Structure formats: structure tokens, C-alpha cells
């Protein structure tokens, strides 16, 4: 039951974040600091969660590092979400045929 309690808290907070601005607070946020803070948050949080965690997600840290490099290169060159994710997986699969 502990897990469902976690899931309910997750769902409740996530829904409130999404629903409050379109229902109750319909005014735009004025403060430049808060707007800038909210603008930067997703990129920082995703970057923090990606590294060094990606090194531990695979059988060998080497293939995780290669997936990071290839993923960054693919996204830089304009690959969408799906292509970037698939290229990361392919690199790990190929490399781990040889190492780890």
C-alpha cells in the first residue's frame, strides 16, 4: 500500500501544478525572477538527472558514456525525441556486444 500512497501523492501534486494556472490563477506571472526561474528549471533538472545517472544505467559505464555523447550529438543535429532515444539504445546495444 505504501507504493500506492506514493503514487497518489505524485499524481495529486502533478495534477495541481497543471490545473491551477488554467482554472484558478488565470493571470500571467509578472515577476521576471520567477518567470526566469521556472524557465530554467526543466533544463537544469533534466541535466542533473541525466548525468552521472546514465553511466550507472548500463552494464558498463563506458557504454553509458557513449550513449550520452551520441544522444547529445543526435539532438544537437536536430533528431527528435524518438530518434535521440533510439540512437542511445542502439549504441549501448552494439558496444555491450564487445565490452562489459
Amino acid at each position, binding site marked *: 500500500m505504501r507504493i500506492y500512497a506514493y503514487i497518489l501523492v*505524485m499524481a495529486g501534486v502533478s495534477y495541481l501544478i497543471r490545473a491551477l494556472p488554467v482554472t484558478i490563477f488565470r493571470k500571467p*506571472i509578472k515577476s521576471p525572477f520567477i518567470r526566469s526561474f521556472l524557465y530554467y528549471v526543466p533544463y537544469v533538472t533534466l*541535466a542533473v538527472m541525466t548525468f552521472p545517472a546514465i553511466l550507472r544505467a548500463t552494464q558498463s559505464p563506458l557504454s553509458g558514456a557513449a550513449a550520452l555523447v551520441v544522444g547529445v550529438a543526435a539532438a544537437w543535429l536536430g533528431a527528435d525525441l524518438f530518434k535521440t532515444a533510439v540512437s542511445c539504445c542502439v549504441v549501448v546495444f552494439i558496444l555491450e556486444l564487445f565490452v562489459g
Partner: protein
Amino acid sequence: MDRKKQYLQGVRDGVPIGLGYFAVSFSLGIIAKNVGLTPVQAAVMSLLNNASAGEYMGLTVMAANGTLWGMALAMLITNARYLLMSCAMSQRMDPDMPFYHRLLMAFDITDELFGITIARPGYLSPWYMYGGMTPSIPGWMIGTALGALAGSVLPLRVVSALSVALYGMFIAIFIPPARKDRVIAALVALAFASSWGLSVLPATAALSEGTRTIILTVALSAGAAALFPRKEETE
């Protein structure tokens, strides 16, 4: 444009999103299984949350046996971007649009569905967004459930390869803006370095991954907002 047409266009634009979600949520399911969730629990989590980074963060809090308050705080930080998207959407909604449409649309504000919905001209159509949600929600939920199921069936090497799909999705979100904006590029580099630093420093390595993520996100974003405030909204 009538409701049916809006809805069908949403479905058409939502199909590639749903396929991408299916692939990425599969790796989320693998992580969920490692944390101890059953496939049904993993599916319920994905159905109710629809958030890649948020669910990943939630799983790290569960793995660390964190408190429910800690979980709420973790969600507030990792999903803060949806607050910004929801604000942007509220500016584009017909003031006369019924309240229940607002409640339903809010349920699935994700990076991708926000992107396709806000890109359309005029007042936002709830029916277009429902169309986008139709393939996306099952794609995300079923992918998570299958990942949690297959994590124990597939060979280790295949699981290892699929595990990085989630990180690939994160990378695909933060790299395109980093390419256009030097402040974001520097922030990403700083985030990588400090995240690694905190994971090896004895004083901070004992903290859970979720706690470290919250500390770094708040500190770096607040620092960037103070030093490099954004001139105007570019959503």
C-alpha cells in the same frame, strides 16, 4: 472548425508522440520494476502522472524510502515546468470555455502535447488536445507496464540498451534550447559537473539522488534567474 475535425487532427498529430512515449516509458518500466513496483502499479503510476522526469524522480524517492512530504516536494520541483506551460495555455483559452474542459486538458499537459497544442492558431481547442491525448496516454501507460514485465524476461544486454531511452528523451529536451541559448548551454554543463560532484563528495553522496536533484535544480535555476533574467516570454 468542428469538434470532430479538431479531434481527428489531434489524433493524427498524437500518433508519433504516442509511439515515442511507448519506447521511452518502456525504460521507465524497467526502472520501476527494479524499485519494486508490479506492472500494474507501474501502469497506474504512468496513467495518473504522464511525466517522464517526474515519474523517474518519484521512483528515486521510493527507492530511497523517502517521506510523502519529500515526494510532494520532489514532484513540485521536477514538474515545475508544467506550471509555466499551464500559465501559457491559460492565456490562449476562450474565456467562455467550460470549466470541465480546463480540468480535463490540464490532466495531460506534457512537453510534447503542450508543444503541438500551443502551436495552433487562435483559441486552444480542447477537442484537438483530447485527440492528441488519445494515442499518448495508452502509449505511455502500456509502455511502462510492458517495461516492468519485460525487465525480468529479456536478456540483460537488451534491458541495458533499453534503459538509456529515458535519458535519451531528457537529452532531446535540453539540448535543442542549449544550442540556441548560451546561458542554457552553460547551465547544462554546470548541472552535469555539479551533479557528478555531489554524487562523489562524501558529505553529499549520502543524500538521496532525489534530494541532490532538488538542491541543485533550485540553486542553479535561482542563480541563473538572478544573473540572467529572461527579457520576455518566448514560449
